């Protein structure tokens, strides 16, 4: 039933799509990580309007599908004078989406750092900034590794919707093969295998990081 020669024929194109997916995900996840951390830290400042702003950002970005966010950014941007390329819109949209999820995870992580440790650091003469940098962030990071990697895996999978804004990633490449060759079975199975490989690799890597952080 499964045609192996067909598989071999599609593999190179699917590989190229895979590289695009990996590249765009790597960049946006890193940017999203930084954004999430910044938002979580800003949320700790005693300034009310900032809290509302952050709440609004998190609720809206987590409450609507990524597909619609990308669509509105890419096709709606030009009417506001902002015309990003498909790649830029993709990276921007995915980073904002990732940032919203991760900021919530980091917020939970900060809340879980025992207050005694912070007090102790302050008594030892650490400045506020130094306490954040040397005590709070490292402690928090240890706690948030598992939920963060879970979230990243989810977002890698969701990146399939980048196809609606013409980013030639894995799913779009496969869809193109399907509509040109009229073959469904082999390309879609290969597509599944490709995603499963990426997500399994990330899951494996995260377990290694987790173990090292716990030992540290």
């Amino acid at each position: 039933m499964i045609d192996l020669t067909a598989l071999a024929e599609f593999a190179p194109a699917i590989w190229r799509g895979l590289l695009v997916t990996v590249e765009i995900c790597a960049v946006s996840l890193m940017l999203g990580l930084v954004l999430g951390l910044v938002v979580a830290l800003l949320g700790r400042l005693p300034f009310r309007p900032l809290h509302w702003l952050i709440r609004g950002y998190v609720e809206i970005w987590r409450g609507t599908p990524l597909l619609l966010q990308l669509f509105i950014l890419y096709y709606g941007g030009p009417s506001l004078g902002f015309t990003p390329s498909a790649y830029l819109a993709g990276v921007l949209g995915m980073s904002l989406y990732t940032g919203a999820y991760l900021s919530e995870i980091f917020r939970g992580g900060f809340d879980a750092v025992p207050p005694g440790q912070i007090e102790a650091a302050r008594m030892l003469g650490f400045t506020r900034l130094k306490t954040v940098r040397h005590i709070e962030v490292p402690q928090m990071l240890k706690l948030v590794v598992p939920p963060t990697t879970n979230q990243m895996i989810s977002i890698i999978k969701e990146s399939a919707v980048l196809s609606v804004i013409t980013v030639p990633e894995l799913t779009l490449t496969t869809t193109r093969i399907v509509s040109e060759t009229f073959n469904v079975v082999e390309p879609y199975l290969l597509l599944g295998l490709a995603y499963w490989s990426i997500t399994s690799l990330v899951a494996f890597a995260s377990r290694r990081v987790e173990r090292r952080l716990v030992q540290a």
Partner: protein
Amino acid sequence: MDFTAVIAQLPRLVAGAQTTVWLSVAALACGAVLGLVMCAARLSGNIALRAVAAGFVSVFRGLPLLVVLLILFYVPPNFGIETTPITAALLGLTLNTAGYQTEIYRAGFLTLPPGHAEAARMLGFSRLQIARHIFLPQIFRVTIPALTNEAVDVVKSSGLLSVIAVTELLRVSQQIVSSTYRPLETYLVCAVFYFVLSSTVSWTGRALERRMSLKPA
């Protein structure tokens, strides 16, 4: 921007949202049953059962829902199995959420103090009774926040069902775009619909969490 054409189509968007809601609710419920079964398998003493459950979780958390749906919709007929769009949709959403729910329940189970089960056994409870009266209510209570997030994810990802001929909220929006040529306005309104749905889910989750909290009121 001109929303008049889209506003005129609001009843259709509401109908699409209804499809989104019933499919999400059905998938979440079926996923809860399957997830609990898989969780029990993952925690059982039987190696084969544990392996099956671990494989299940790895596959359905590792595959994008879109890919699962495409495979369920297009591949079975090649082997002589018929699937309608709704069955493929329901099956795909269920398997996807069950993969996540298995892990949520497992994490919840691991937080339970072992003393409870022992105490119940000493009181003469059977294993099934322990699972039903001791474990389940407690697991449910500690996993509400995670389950709420999962429910929001299911509602949002149900938009992918549009690809396999299910006319839910997103497909209705696409259809409206094709006759009104107002993509931006339509998708903004569609996003508002999703936002209302997911906010309702989060709000309900938080209310449940408060009600079931053990802290004195």
